[in-house]
């Protein structure tokens, strides 16, 4: 895919004082970019980070003339994006991959989709064939070329989208949160692919909320309020925790742990990015022996509602040629007051099980008991059931429908026929719970909220029914680090103070580590593994084989053990890691090493 880059001395992308304003003439325009200047050289790997609304996506769309500057200039390979005649060249040089896999595939088979770009460029059929084949082999999907895209996993779909970009033989690939919707295996596939095509000479510009991914990049650009807030190596960005938090970001787990250790242990280096670096640094300074016991977190017993799933099977499109088995004999119990996580690769049956527990799908074989009564019986009275079990689907913010936030939250309580005062009280309570103050937000337009606020509003809409059991499908996918942290805190609070039982299906193992007491691992419609969170994550190889991974902190500890340090393998959170390692850092070895008096 790489072209000869001998003669190119000029930057691949050059942006000078770029401003972008959204909005029609006459309205007050929204300034998304306010004077950004930067250059990207051929062969670079750049990560763009920033909180939601900081202008990342707008910037990315200027890179291949999908948006045009309101002020300032963008040049790609010396060509200004302002001239329409340049667009085909620019867009084939700087190709783009978007966040939603399913919304960027146009054709009905993989091979036709990958050919779409080259066809648009009017290449001769033999060249198209060659490019398409080369691109599909690069992403490892040549064998699946005749599949319709909607029968592929999200990770595969995203690789098709990348192949579609590569087939135009671009010099640069821009990815706009292209891994946000993927499961761990899909994310690994895509990141490995990016590393490879970068090594082959393609320039990569990657927008991401996943801070650990920035470790792949040589250079990080951080945006805040439409301005360039940082431009440098990831190491330099994360070494300053105050700046990171000011930008609405958070350091990757390794760096966060290093910062915590540095507080206890002055002089501990904080410019660490990979588990291996941390392990190497620690190995020099830590006592090799000594143990520290971990106290498992226990669910409190005060919650209500127990669920018992008995030998549940489910087949989608049963009785048609397209029938697919989603659940294949699942047994599970949810105890009152617990937080239970369902994990598993895409297509393992998590969402199906979740919908079954919500009473939205009833098992083809087997049954689900709620408080000992068959859910089918409960489901006959939706209004009662909706006050027992609430469910929040993926991307719930897309399901808001009332113009005003308060009305949308009030939808459920009104449906069950509460009086005005009670509805108001419920709405107020629910909005305060999720961190949207009632008086400030109730009369705001739903569509004017940010993505994160809309998701909180959707959660409030479910909470307003005061369910005892809350089911969540990918609650934090696509959120920026700060919003994610707030949402997790809300859920933990609801569980501990509000005695809410929670079941969440997620790809994000850090969410599981932060919340769950117990984990069910699903694979091909069966429970492959289950137990307390700590025990489940102690089997990292097994999880890896199922297309999953362990939380970031756990993998740091694994790296430490590989270096010969005797630390517990099942450390889940930063707090625990700090405690475990802190206990071993006695008596201030840094001081001893450096011979400084205390």
């Amino acid at each position: 895919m790489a072209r000869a880059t001998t003669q190119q001395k000029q930057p691949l992308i050059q942006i000078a004082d770029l401003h972008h304003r959204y909005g029609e003439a006459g309205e007050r325009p929204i300034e998304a970019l306010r004077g950004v200047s930067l250059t990207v050289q051929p062969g670079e790997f750049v990560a763009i980070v920033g909180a939601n609304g900081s202008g990342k996506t707008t910037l990315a769309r200027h890179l291949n003339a999908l948006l045009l500057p309101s002020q300032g200039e963008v040049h790609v390979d010396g060509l200004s994006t302002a001239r329409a005649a340049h667009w085909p060249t620019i867009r084939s040089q700087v190709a783009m991959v978007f966040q939603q896999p399913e919304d960027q595939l146009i054709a009905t088979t993989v091979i036709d989709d990958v050919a779409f770009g080259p066809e648009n460029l009017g290449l001769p059929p033999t060249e198209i064939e060659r490019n398409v084949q080369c691109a599909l082999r690069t992403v490892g999907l040549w064998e699946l070329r005749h599949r319709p895209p909607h029968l592929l996993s999200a990770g595969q779909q995203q690789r098709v989208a990348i192949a579609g970009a590569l087939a135009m033989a671009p010099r640069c690939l821009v990815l706009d949160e292209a891994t946000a919707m993927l499961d761990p295996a899909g994310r690994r596939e895509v990141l490995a692919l990016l590393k490879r095509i970068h090594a082959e000479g393609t320039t990569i510009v990657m927008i991401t909320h996943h801070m650990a991914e920035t470790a792949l990049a040589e250079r990080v650009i951080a945006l805040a309020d439409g301005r360039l807030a940082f431009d440098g190596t990831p190491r330099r960005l994360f070494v300053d925790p105050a700046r990171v938090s000011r930008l609405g970001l958070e350091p990757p787990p390794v760096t966060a742990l290093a910062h915590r250790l540095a507080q206890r242990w002055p002089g501990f280096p904080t410019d660490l990015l990979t588990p291996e670096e941390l392990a190497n640094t620690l190995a020099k300074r830590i006592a090799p022996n000594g143990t520290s016991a971990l106290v498992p977190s226990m669910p409190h017993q005060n919650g209500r509602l127990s669920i018992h799933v008995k030998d549940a099977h489910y087949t989608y499109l049963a009785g048609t040629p397209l029938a697919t088995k989603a659940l294949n004999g699942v047994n599970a119990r949810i105890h009152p007051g617990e937080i239970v996580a369902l994990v598993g690769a895409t297509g393992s049956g998590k969402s199906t099980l979740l919908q079954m527990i919500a009473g939205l799908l009833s098992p083809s074989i087997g049954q689900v008991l709620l408080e000992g009564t068959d859910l089918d019986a409960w489901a006959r009275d939706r209004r009662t059931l909706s006050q027992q079990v609430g469910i929040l689907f993926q991307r719930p913010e897309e399901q808001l429908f009332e113009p005003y936030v308060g009305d949308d939250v009030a939808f459920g309580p009104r449906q069950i026929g509460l009086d005005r005062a009670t509805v108001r009280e419920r709405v107020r309570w629910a909005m305060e719970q999720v961190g949207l103050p009632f008086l400030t937000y109730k009369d705001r337009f739903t569509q004017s909220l940010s993505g994160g606020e809309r998701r909180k509003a959707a959660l409030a809409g479910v909470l307003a029914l005061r369910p005892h059991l809350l089911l969540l499908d990918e609650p934090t996918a696509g959120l920026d680090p700060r919003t994610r942290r707030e949402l997790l805190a809300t859920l933990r609070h609801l569980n501990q103070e509000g005695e809410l039982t929670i079941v969440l299906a997620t790809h994000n193992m850090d969410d599981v580590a932060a919340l769950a007491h117990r984990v069910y691992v699903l694979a091909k419609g069966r429970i492959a593994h289950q137990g307390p969170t700590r025990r489940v994550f102690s089997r990292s190889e097994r999880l890896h084989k199922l297309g999953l991974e362990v939380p970031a902190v756990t993998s740091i500890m694994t790296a430490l053990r590989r270096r010969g340090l005797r630390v517990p393998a099942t450390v889940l959170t930063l707090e625990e890691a700090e405690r475990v390692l802190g206990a071993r850092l006695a008596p201030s070895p840094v001081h001893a090493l450096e011979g400084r008096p205390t």
Partner: protein
Amino acid sequence: MKRLEFLRYATLGQYLPGDSRIHRLDPRIKLVAFGLIVAAVTFSNAYLANGILLLAILLLLGLSRLPLGYGLQSARLALPALVILALFQLVMPARQFGTGATCAIIWQWRLLQLTDCTLRLIVVSTARLIALLVLTNLLTFTTKTSDLATGVEDLLAPLQRIGVPAHELALTLSIALRFVPTLALQMERVVKAQTARGADFGASSRFQVIKTTRRLLPLLVPLFVGGLRRSERLALAMEARCYTGGRGRSRRTRARAGLTDYVALIAVGAFCAAMWVIDFGALDRALWLWLAGAR
């Protein structure tokens, strides 16, 4: 709630992979043959002709090796509508339909009367609708959407000179069919989410139009907003991949019709011509007479 699966009902444009003779036919030939049979179905108003056409379509369904029940599913789903249609036709008798001869009363009860013209109308229109539904399913089940789209594009290409946007039509068709399952799934998710919030989409009084519409808002707003967002994202993705319309575009592959394709086309053409030429009205009358004589 047992089967809240919208994909089950979104069979439009669905492709069922297979390797039958019908699957392998050149899409252009298949489209022309489809058009010919549709014309034959539309213009036949004799019992015998419709019977033969239905049989022929069933034969094609057999040749495609699709499961019979699935091939007939859309006809089964349309059954209630067909019954209602038949009742309407019974109440509003068509006096001149069919042969143009006077209508004989077969059965009468108070104001209701069933003439042989009405009977013919009911039977023939039901048979026609079933034939068209099954035929459409047969076409989409056995043809990849992309092939269908390129087929349409190729067939319309000669009309491009007089301003028919062949490529754009084909692309629109292909994208529409590509998103049928996606939108069905989206709808399903919205229905489930709002149901879980206590919404009731069940029966409501049929005279409270405003109330009923208001009740559907929780479904329609997310569906439309989502659909518009989705199309915006799709347009952006197409633009990012240098799409600027049909001009200056090339194609990776072009279909080439072989001997089997032409033989199939000639066979279908001959069959439809025969359906056109033969006076089935006379045959019907002869059949009636023979049946009456036999009795």
